[in-house]
């Protein structure tokens, strides 16, 4: 007979589950946590490698030497920007056109749900300017993108300058097989999202934008630049995107390969790589890096402009130049060489990035942990829920036999069980919809700002929820309560495990 259909064996198993439940749960918890922490230990990780054969290794010859041109462009840009008080659309358009690109502008506007902190206004208006370098001999079916955002204040001028210098240099080469789009977007993420939505002809966030005049085909890869100083000491790569989505690991590997070739100092999470993985400080450094990445992914916020591309299946990274107090500085020409090398290799791509991993954790730039290695840690934690559910199930099926001689209360009825669950769901819905609905009303009648109104509504719902156990206790009564609660816990824990089980395969 089978393992579970044989009554003796079944009883032995269920006894095991019930007797050893707590120790098993504790052990699962410890194993899960230890597994996850152990992932940062270098011998347990794999070295990164280029999976895409078409890109090849870093064998190109970079000839970009126009770093000073980039700096002069950036000075002009900052000057014009101060004069206009925003993105100098006309100057930018004129410069790009003189460099030989096809220039297009896109205006966008969006009503914000909360007013802008600094300017106390709802409406955000802006313009994106982008120039397309058409491939000299190729059909216009694919493209790669380089973007620099025009953020508040006087940040990121050097990125725009380098973008223009690279555009003029790239225009003189004949080996481009894909179009290159040079994009300068206003208002960071809002402008980028407006551009992406208009480019792909969707409307997901309710941004109104002018129709997009010029397109360059499917975007294969995108790089977003953030440079705010004339010289940099290290180059940081930012991978976390919207909702924790990550670009293909090959793009990060490409960046690191060129960093090594050029000899530039490259960091991730702003941290340099260490060689002493067998010491405690070295291990805690990589653990720190990995946990920072987990934290940033869990926040759901895109850490750079690249994060919005990932939703459209365009692999993108943000490269951030950092100017610290180190002695050795890299100038704009070196940065330009790195980007030129990356773009030449991206030019060799035949298909979208698909060979390497999409789900990974990076304890350092040379080591990675793929989802197959970090998911078991989470599944151990979910195993605890399953064990608890099993334990409750066994207890529920055992209790009626034990209490035969006592007065048998009728088992908890479906209605009484369903009520708490229903109330919980109602609370959840209230939390989801009410704050936004009441935000308007609250500001009219109460002297609070919109953000405060949201927070207060949530607090009000929580306070009302405090009365829930008392109410449900009154609704249910009798010995059936004990059974009933066990049943409740069982029902609520099983749906929690189910999504993890599906994601584990």
């Amino acid at each position, binding site marked *: 007979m089978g393992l579970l259909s044989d009554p003796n064996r079944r009883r032995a198993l269920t006894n095991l589950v019930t007797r050893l439940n707590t120790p098993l749960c504790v052990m699962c918890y410890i194993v899960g946590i230890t597994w996850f922490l152990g992932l940062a230990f270098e011998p347990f990780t794999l070295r990164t490698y280029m999976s895409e054969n078409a890109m090849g290794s870093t*064998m190109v010859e970079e000839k970009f030497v126009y770093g000073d041109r980039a700096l002069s462009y950036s000075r002009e840009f900052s000057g014009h920007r101060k004069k206009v008080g925003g993105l100098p659309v006309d100057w930018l358009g004129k410069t790009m056109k003189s460099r030989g690109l096809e220039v297009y502008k896109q205006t966008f506007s969006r009503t914000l749900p909360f007013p802008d902190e600094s300017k106390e206004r709802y409406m955000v208006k802006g313009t994106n300017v982008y120039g397309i370098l058409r491939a000299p001999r190729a059909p216009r079916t694919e493209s790669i993108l380089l973007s620099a955002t025009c953020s508040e204040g006087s940040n990121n001028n050097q990125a725009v300058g380098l973008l223009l210098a690279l555009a003029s240099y790239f225009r003189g080469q004949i080996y481009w097989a894909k179009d290159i789009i040079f994009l300068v977007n206003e208002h960071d993420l809002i402008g980028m999202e407006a551009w992406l939505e208009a480019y792909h002809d969707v409307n997901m966030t309710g941004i109104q934008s002018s129709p997009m005049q010029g397109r360059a085909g499917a975007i294969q890869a995108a790089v977003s630049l953030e440079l705010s100083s004339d010289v940099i000491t290290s180059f940081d790569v930012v991978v976390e995107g919207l909702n924790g989505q990550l670009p293909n690991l090959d793009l990060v590997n490409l960046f690191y390969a060129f960093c090594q070739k050029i000899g530039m100092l490259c960091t991730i999470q702003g941290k340099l790589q260490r060689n002493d993985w067998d010491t405690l400080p070295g291990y805690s450094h990589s653990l720190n890096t990995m946990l920072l990445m987990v934290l940033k992914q869990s926040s759901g916020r895109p850490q750079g402009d690249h994060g919005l591309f990932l939703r459209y299946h365009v692999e993108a990274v943000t490269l951030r130049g950092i100017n610290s107090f180190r002695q050795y500085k890299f100038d704009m020409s070196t940065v330009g060489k790195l980007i030129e090398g990356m773009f030449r290799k991206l030019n*060799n791509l035949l298909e979208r990035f698909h060979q390497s991993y999409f789900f990974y954790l990076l304890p350092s730039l040379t080591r990675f942990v793929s989802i197959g290695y970090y998911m078991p840690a989470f599944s151990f934690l979910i195993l605890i829920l399953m064990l608890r559910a099993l334990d409750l199930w066994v207890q529920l099926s055992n209790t009626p036999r034990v209490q035969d001689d006592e007065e048998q209360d009728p088992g908890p009825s479906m209605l009484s069980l369903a009520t708490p669950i229903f109330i919980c769901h109602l609370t959840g819905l209230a939390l989801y919809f009410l704050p936004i609905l009441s935000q308007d009303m609250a500001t009219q009648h109460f002297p609070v700002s919109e953000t405060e109104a949201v927070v207060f509504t949530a607090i009000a719902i929580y306070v009302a929820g405090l009365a829930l156990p008392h109410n449900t206790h009154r609704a249910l009564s009798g010995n059936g309560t004990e059974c009933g609660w066990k049943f409740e816990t069982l029902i609520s824990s099983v749906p929690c495990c189910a999504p993890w089980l599906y994601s584990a395969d």
Partner: protein
Amino acid sequence: MASFVGVQFTFCFRIIVILFFLHFYRTSLSAHEIETQASHFFRSGHTNNWAVLVCTSRFWFNYRHVANTLSVYRSVKRLGIPDSHIVLMLADDMACNHRNPKPATVFSHKNMELNVYGDDVEVDYRGYEVTVENFLRVLTGRLPASTPRSKRLLSDDRSNILIYMTGHGGNGFLKFQDSEEITNVELADAFEQMWQKRRYNELLFIIDTCQGASMYERFYSPNIMALASSQVGEDSLSHQPDLAIGVHLMDRYTFYLLEFLEDIHPASQSNMNDLFKVCPKSQCVSTPGHRTDLFQRNPNSVLITDFFGSVRKVEITMSTMKLNPNNTERTEIDVNEEMVTTLQHYVDQLPVAEIIHQKPKQKDWHPPDGFILGLWTLIILIFFQTYGIKHLKHVF
């Protein structure tokens, strides 16, 4: 006085006779030389040369395979084989690829020293026309009637054919165009078809892929010599990248083969043993291999130009000579006597009448219909009769 004249006369006469004998001796010597030289004409037994050069991989990162094939094409053309006798198959166009920083060129040496694309490349099968089916049809000659002459291998039984293949391969196969492959068994059978149809006199097969030696393991037709760039289990490596172009330019074996062939000129007397020494393990990292057991002549009497060049030996002489056509250096091996003695003729194309009236041939005997069914019914009836009807419910 008369005696003096007589003495002079006899002296002159003797000199004349001596001179006459010397002259006669020299002419007979030169006639003998010419005869030996003329006997060299029939050493190899071939009268024309063909070359089939195949590059099987596409995409920009396989630049080196196209460069390999074009460098062999260049050598073969330089040594005399005309375009009409070369079938060149290139699976992709590297010269006009969008990523080529020097359009219309394919370089084999870095720093762009040697452009193997040249000005007069004639590609017969290009792009997606390079398939296993087309390759086998070229070899066996089974092409539709509309195929132009440049796409045909019009060889006869006195042709020496050079077949060069390069691309990505493995143990027993060669990949064509990322979607299909040709196996060593197929290739061996194609060569046997060629032998049966007397489409070659001798064949030299060179392959430059990973595990290339597996491709010639299965040959069983006579007069085939094969070379490969690596043994089974070894990878053939690429030679050098060019940083300006951004790809590897050549494979090692073909690079050193090209260097070797650049030293060969139409009158060179290098033989196959020199070719076997091309690219030792120290240069190639893989171990090149060769196979000569099917070849009837001794490799050291086979000239490189027998396969790579199209050599016409022309000697002008005024003397007559006797030519003995059986004066060859062939070592007679007992391959298959039937093939030599029976009269060969082409297989008949199926006449129309036979197509219409053809009956399907029954090769295997099957029992008449219903026999199996009846047999099983009988078995089941007997079973239930013996063991009782109560078992019936367990069956259904």
